[in-house]
């Protein structure tokens, strides 16, 4: 039974249905969108239930020829990593739709249609096992996001939307070139044309083209992550995007980058991965510290959270490139955690933005008095974001740091300073927003969050504590997948090292022979 196709296309079908609802019936549109999101979520739960947690390799695969003349297949499949990201996507979609209930008043239909198309694209990326299909879904995500930022965004939305699209397009074009190179390379290797990731992974690639291919893919993914110094689109996009857009952007779209690394760039180019480990790890450490420092001095809460994302995603990247089981599993969990925590932060910021129409920290103060429930939720989410033990953030960060420390002591040491800095910027922001006296008279009449808003936040808070206290279900499911990726990289690297060692030995032998020859020559001359 094919579970993934309905999961991917349910939101798309929903978007088409929505297109036939008259634009004026906004309540119907919201209702339909919500129902479709819930159906998608239920489908993702079915997929979760169907998934065999012990099984290695791809599960629930579908492989149907699609464009036979070009060797393109409709090839889907998931492993533990994609499974978790899919469930995260469907959960966040529901919450994002709920959060837009009141805040979107213009062009309601277009907004929800875009949201649903976006969801299809995201789930598709996580399921695709054919590079062509992957690329299509990758680009499909871009267009609705462009509209979400560009139409429903803040005052500088057009600049932000164009910046977002240009950055991402730049990366994806390089990726397209690399995909085509692989496609033709595979033809000369095996005699057939294919875009199948699993087959392409088996193809040995010479070290030099491997480097170039890795760079092309890595750029595409690093821009999406975003890794320092490709991050400048992120604060603009986040600040301008509507709440739902920010939630999806931070919660899922950024994960596309790291997912791309672990699904494509790392296993496909193991030698290049080994070569680039130091560079990417250093960039990640810079991202961790830089993002934290810069978010400390932000004046807008949303851009503060955006820069904190740079820091947190730096942790994920560092974990991936520490290349040991502990760190990579930590990184995978941290991808989920970041989606939950940062998603929740953006939702919370959206809630006060709806009330005050400003996000400047200086405008607030003393919210603890007027909005106690909001402040409590904000506190929990903030603590998860700074990685307090027994919240989700700690589990991921700890494993990443542990693994990074093993890979290279200094990565661990410098990255761990991010833990201190995270406390600095988050607590300082929280203090200025929630603590103190109510100085601004406009804040005095603020109402606390209502039931709809509580329903949005409660699932995330539950997840924060669940993953923090009992992360085993997640670790069980990602373990085989991570093990496989690392084993694949290790094997290839090992083989290469053996080859080098043989080379060295022959070289040494040759040199030795040369030496002895010289000696004998000398002897002769003597």
């Amino acid at each position: 039974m094919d579970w993934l196709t309905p999961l991917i296309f349910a939101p798309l079908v929903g978007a088409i249905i929505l297109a036939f609802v008259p634009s004026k019936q906004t309540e119907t549109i919201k209702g339909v969108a919500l129902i479709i999101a819930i159906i998608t979520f239920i489908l993702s739960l079915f997929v979760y239930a169907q998934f065999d947690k012990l099984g290695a390799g791809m599960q629930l695969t579908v492989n149907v020829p699609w464009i036979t003349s070009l060797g393109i297949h409709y090839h889907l499949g998931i492993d533990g990593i994609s499974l978790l990201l899919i469930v995260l996507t469907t959960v966040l979609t529901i919450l994002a739709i709920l959060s837009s209930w009141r805040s979107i008043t213009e062009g309601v239909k277009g907004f929800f249609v875009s949201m649903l198309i976006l969801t299809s694209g995201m789930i598709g990326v996580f399921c695709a096992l054919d590079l062509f299909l992957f690329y299509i879904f990758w680009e499909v995500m871009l267009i609705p996001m462009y509209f979400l930022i560009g139409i429903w965004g803040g005052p500088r939305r057009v600049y932000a939307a164009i910046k977002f699209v240009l950055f991402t397009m730049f990366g994806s074009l390089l990726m397209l070139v690399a995909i085509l190179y692989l496609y033709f390379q595979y033809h000369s290797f095996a005699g057939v044309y294919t875009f199948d990731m699993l087959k392409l992974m088996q193809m040995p690639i010479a070290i030099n083209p491997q480097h170039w291919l890795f760079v092309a893919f890595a750029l595409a993914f690093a821009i999406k992550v975003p890794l320092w110094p490709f991050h400048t689109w992120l604060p603009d996009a986040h600040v301008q995007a509507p709440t739902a857009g920010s939630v999806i952007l931070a919660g899922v779209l950024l994960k596309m980058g790291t997912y791309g690394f672990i699904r494509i760039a790392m296993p496909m180019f193991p030698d290049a991965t080994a070569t680039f480990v130091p560079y990417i790890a250093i960039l990640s450490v810079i991202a961790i510290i830089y993002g934290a420092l810069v978010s400390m001095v932000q004046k807008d809460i949303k851009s503060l959270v955006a820069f904190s994302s740079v820091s947190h995603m730096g942790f994920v990247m560092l974990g991936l490139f520490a290349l040991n089981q502990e760190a990579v599993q930590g990184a995978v969990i941290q991808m989920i955690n970041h989606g939950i925590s940062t998603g929740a932060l953006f939702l919370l910021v959206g809630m006060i933005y709806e009330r005050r129409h400003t996000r400047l920290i200086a405008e607030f103060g003393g919210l603890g008095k007027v909005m106690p429930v909001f402040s409590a939720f904000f506190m929990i989410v903030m603590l998860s974001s700074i990685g307090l033990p027994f919240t989700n953030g700690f589990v991921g960060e700890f494993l990443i740091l542990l693994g990074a420390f093993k890979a290279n002591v200094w990565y661990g040491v410098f990255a761990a300073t991010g833990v201190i800095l995270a406390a600095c910027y988050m607590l300082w922001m929280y203090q200025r927003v929630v603590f103190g006296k109510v100085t601004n008279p406009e804040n005095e009449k603020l109402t606390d969050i209502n039931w709809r808003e509580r329903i949005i936040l409660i699932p995330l808070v539950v997840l924060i504590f669940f993953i923090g206290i009992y992360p085993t279900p997640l670790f069980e499911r990602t373990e085989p997948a991570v093990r496989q990726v690392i084993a694949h990289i290790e094997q290839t690297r090992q083989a290469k090292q053996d080859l080098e060692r043989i080379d060295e030995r022959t070289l040494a032998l040759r040199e030795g022979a040369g030496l002895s020859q010289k000696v004998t020559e000398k002897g002769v001359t003597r």
Partner: protein
Amino acid sequence: MSEYLFWIPLLPLLGFLINGLLLGKLPRPVVSAVACVSVGLSFVLSLLLFFELRSLPPAAREIEQVLFTWIAAGSFHVDIAFLLDPLSAVMILVVTGVGFLIHVYSTGYMHHDKDFGRYFAYLNLFTFSMLTLVLANNFLLMFVGWEGVGLCSYLLIGFWFHKKSASDAGKKAFIVNRIGDFGFLLGMFIIFWQVGSLEFKTVMEQAPAMFVAGGGLITAACLLLFVGATGKSAQIPLYVWLPDAMEGPTPVSALIHAATMVTAGVYMIARSSVLYMMAPDALMVVAIIGAATAFFAATIGLAQNDIKRVLAYSTVSQLGYMFLACGVAAFGAGIFHLMTHAFFKALLFLAAGSVIHAMSEKQDMREMGGLKKYLPITYMTMLIATLAIAGIPGLSGFFSKDEILWKAFSSQHGHWLLWLVGFITAGLTAFYMFRLIYMTFHGKERMDEHTRSHIHESPRSMTVPLMALAVLSVIGGYIGMPHIFGVTNYFEEWLAPVVHGPGHQAASHALAAAGADTSMEWALMAASVILVIIAIFVARHFYNKKPEAATAMAEKMSGMKTLLANKYYVDEFYGATVVRPIVNGSLFLWKFVDVVIIDGTINGLAVISRDISEVLRYVQGGKVRNYATVFVAGVIVLVAYFIFG
């Protein structure tokens, strides 16, 4: 019985959940009942388990309960599991016992506060975290408690969050603690990658095989753990948060910032005593930092006028003593002082709270005086605690402090200089504590009329815990009397299976058994008692008999006084060297690196392509005939090329 171990931390957690989730919905008596009963039950359970533990033979005194796997990834595996052994048994008794008394006290002290429920929820959460810290069977779960108590400390210091100074102090406490946690984390990494486990038992068993004794790795691990301890236990250089933490409600200062949380660092070092014994260099650092902090904080305590700040610096100083004990490998003495200090310092804070309560929330000792007759119970209990902390023979503080001083002198890791610093500090302690007593309770009544008319002794819910703690402050010391008194040191014996300075203890036993020369120990003990008594009389002279002499003295040494009153300008120093450069550097990164360099490059590329287009656009003149002309010209050129080319 032992299967109920996990209920000890769980009960306060349940109390927290009930009070926290039903915040504002429960009436006050229910809130205080839930909070006190949960901790009280926890205390009863701790007692029962303590007696069960005691019934076991010394070598087998260990109850372990594994609940479930917490984190398992690759070779890393950590359980949620609790370990009750003699060391953690002492700690849970102190935490739940003193904690319970302080909960009871709080019902009276916080009675008028409108955030009553939130207060008790936090207090229960704190008790849960602290119990997790001491009962954890591995470093990581300990770290959970470690960060948890830090969080509660943050929440409780900033409890009156509408005050800027309170929320500032809370934030400072959390961030400074995080700096310490950074060290703790790295220390754990070293231990894990060297030993392959974070479980205490495994680590302590494997460490001798996995580390080179005295090597760089073990020294680094111990020092990093000690960085964590300096953060949590307010030692140089990370002590700065504790005095500011006095912004919190006074019972919180008693529970968190005197009796329990701040001693976590001492507990952690005693718990890792095996590791520290392998790293003599690290031990030496611990001892020096401890002694320096003890002295340094005591000098600041001399010039403070806020009653709680005096106690805060006194706490820092006493914690320094405990670290001094650990640093000379007398871990048992450190834990002993931890326990007696929990009694008398909690009492001091609670009594100070009672004073503040009576004085309509005024904390400046210069506005007090003569309170003895208004607050008889508070005065008596506080006097007992002061005598205990000063080290008057017969009270708990005397035994523990004297043992530390003697160990600092005699231990193979000790040194007479360490003893001397501790000795002088004992004199300073007696002086500033009696200065406090005389300024508060004796002499002229310096408060204004309005305040005076409101002075009243505290309600029963507050005085009963005071009396209970006073009793403990008196008798608490008798379980650990020195060998030279010719009795068994029950406390040391009890802890012996867990914390040991190997060799050291045996030697001291042997000494006592052989009836060897004990004159040195007697002499040192007498010297410190004499010093303390002199110090008390000096304080009496300056602050009771002739207050004008104190002012004259202060004028003569005004430079010194300003320096002390301003706490050696350490906060200002940190502000100028750490905080401001970081903030300015961050602004530079944002405004220059991000906006100018990175975005500038990208926007620059965009501008260049736009400029090129600016020029090229003139080709598109919009005149159809121009296009046609170009077109025909192009055709002619092409045809000519094909014909003639």
